[in-house]
């Protein structure tokens, strides 16, 4: 049951990406192209995606987190890390360059697999390779002495 519901959650996320236009890299790149404000090609839609998503989750999280526990787990697994380290800047800085090069971030790229496009498969394979490399480096003893997240993947 929990598995079926998580499929439905992914489906709703995917429909949101499709309806919002986030699944179209051209739309994402036209948002990221601030030079387009001058030339008239800027597409501010992505700001509305962010606003809609943050508004819905801002209200929804508050309602859900009033409960003592989730439906299918014994507790809520919320990120506990608070301090700002170099990784919270370096990681997103690298991520943003990749995002700006292709117009894909992980969610829309996975949804693009369902379009059957060859480009999406190439991109997702590269994403997984990059993720594997980052996890590998995170677990190297020399690096984990420098920065030791309890869980290197925690948001």
């Amino acid at each position, binding site marked *: 049951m929990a598995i079926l519901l998580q499929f439905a959650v992914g489906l709703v996320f995917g429909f949101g990406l499709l309806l919002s236009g986030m699944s179209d*890299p051209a739309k994402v790149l036209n948002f990221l192209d601030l030079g387009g404000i001058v030339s008239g090609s800027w597409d501010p839609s992505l700001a*509305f995606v962010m606003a809609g*998503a943050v508004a819905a989750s801002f209200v929804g999280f508050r309602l*859900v987190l009033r409960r003592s526990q989730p439906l299918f787990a014994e507790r809520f697994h919320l990120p506990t890390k608070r301090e700002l380290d170099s990784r919270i*800047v370096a990681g*997103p800085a690298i991520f*943003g360059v990749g995002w700006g090069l292709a117009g894909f971030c992980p969610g829309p790229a996975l949804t693009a697999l369902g379009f059957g496009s060859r*480009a999406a498969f190439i991109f997702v394979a590269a*994403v997984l390779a990059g993720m594997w490399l980052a996890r590998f480096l995170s677990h190297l003893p020399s690096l984990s002495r420098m920065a030791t997240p309890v869980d290197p993947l925690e948001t």
Partner: protein
Amino acid sequence: MTVTSFTPIASAVGGALIGLSAVMLMALTGRIAGVSGIAARLLPPYEDDQLAGRLAFVAGLVAAPVLTLAVAGQLPAQTIEAGTMTLVLAGLLVGFGSVWGNGCTSGHGVCGLSRLSLRALVATITFMTTGFATVFIARHWS
């Protein structure tokens, strides 16, 4: 460059669906709907027993356009202009950066911001800035 039209209502409603999905995942599993975190944990080493649920979530993401095509008979526009080399480089950077910085547009940009997390705010401002800069250089410095 492909011209796209401004779609404030569809984008805001689609965004709200993304937010709703994040709320549903929190209500069901108590976890953050960060797509990069979910995707990265599809790879070994496995640190918990949530693999099946993560696979189901990703299957849902992939199934969304398949179902849309089956029901509506057409898919929304999707134009991928990047060539193979750019896709590989961009994918490596997106994958590496999202794990190194503990999140992507969904984990930091949606879930983190709505939880008023300072780390997520720093991350979101950073990837927006380098995203803007990258597109500016790619489109206007050549």
